[in-house]
């Protein structure tokens, strides 16, 4: 599994490279490689005309949390490797905001691990997005109150 820590590993101001993430989790023992890609959509709850998102983070804390989420998920679910990249800065409509790559011996573990990682990132990592609308206005996405890692583990326990 990926054991690197630090914001620069998991947070990227540059466009995300899905081929690179796939290569990162490539493993001869893997019978499944799953790529989850979150993308910019043209609306959110009660908001239409979104043309871009702008992300910012408490980067060092987000990096530490994403590293912990990857490590804990790999201990809880038998996967081969997990790789994560989350965008910072402006991301245009349709472009990826996050890619999670998981390799595992079987598809079930890959799906479960991918879901666990995205759910926990959304509830724990201090990352914020601003919605840029086509009329030029913008506003912060409503978001959710961050959980502690312990609370998130309880709320995302799949068993």
């Amino acid at each position, binding site marked *: 599994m990926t054991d690197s820590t630090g914001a620069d590993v998991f947070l990227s101001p540059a466009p995300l490279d899905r081929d690179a993430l796939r290569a990162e989790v490539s493993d001869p023992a893997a019978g499944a490689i799953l790529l989850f890609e979150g993308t910019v959509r043209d609306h959110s709850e009660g908001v239409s005309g979104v043309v871009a998102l702008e992300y910012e983070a*408490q980067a060092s804390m987000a990096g530490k949390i994403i590293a912990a989420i990857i490590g804990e998920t790999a201990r809880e679910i038998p996967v081969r490797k997990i790789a994560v990249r989350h965008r910072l800065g402006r991301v245009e409509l349709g472009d990826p905001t996050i890619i999670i790559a998981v390799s595992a011996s079987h598809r079930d573990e890959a799906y479960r691990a991918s879901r666990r990682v995205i759910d926990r990132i*959304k509830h724990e990592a201090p990352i*914020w*997005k601003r919605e840029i609308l086509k009329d030029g206005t913008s506003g912060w996405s*409503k978001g959710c109150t961050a959980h502690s890692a312990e609370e998130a583990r309880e709320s995302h326990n799949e068993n």
Partner: protein
Amino acid sequence: MTQTIRVNYYAQLREALKRDSEDVTVALPARERDILDRLAELHPRQRDLFLASRIAVNEDYVDARDLFNDLKRVDVISPISGG
């Protein structure tokens, strides 16, 4: 006892308060809610946002039950929206 702590703001709170940090005097010992109440008292227009926020110390979310006798710096994590 009171102590002056450095408070860091991000995203919507940084924008609303027009600053990315400030020094705030708080009464110790204090729990997370005491610190958020103190910040809401200083910035009443952002009260709802503060009360929906979490506090991080040393880049870890604190437990609501944690009691702090000594604090140098906190990060205020307003509602997050990554992914």
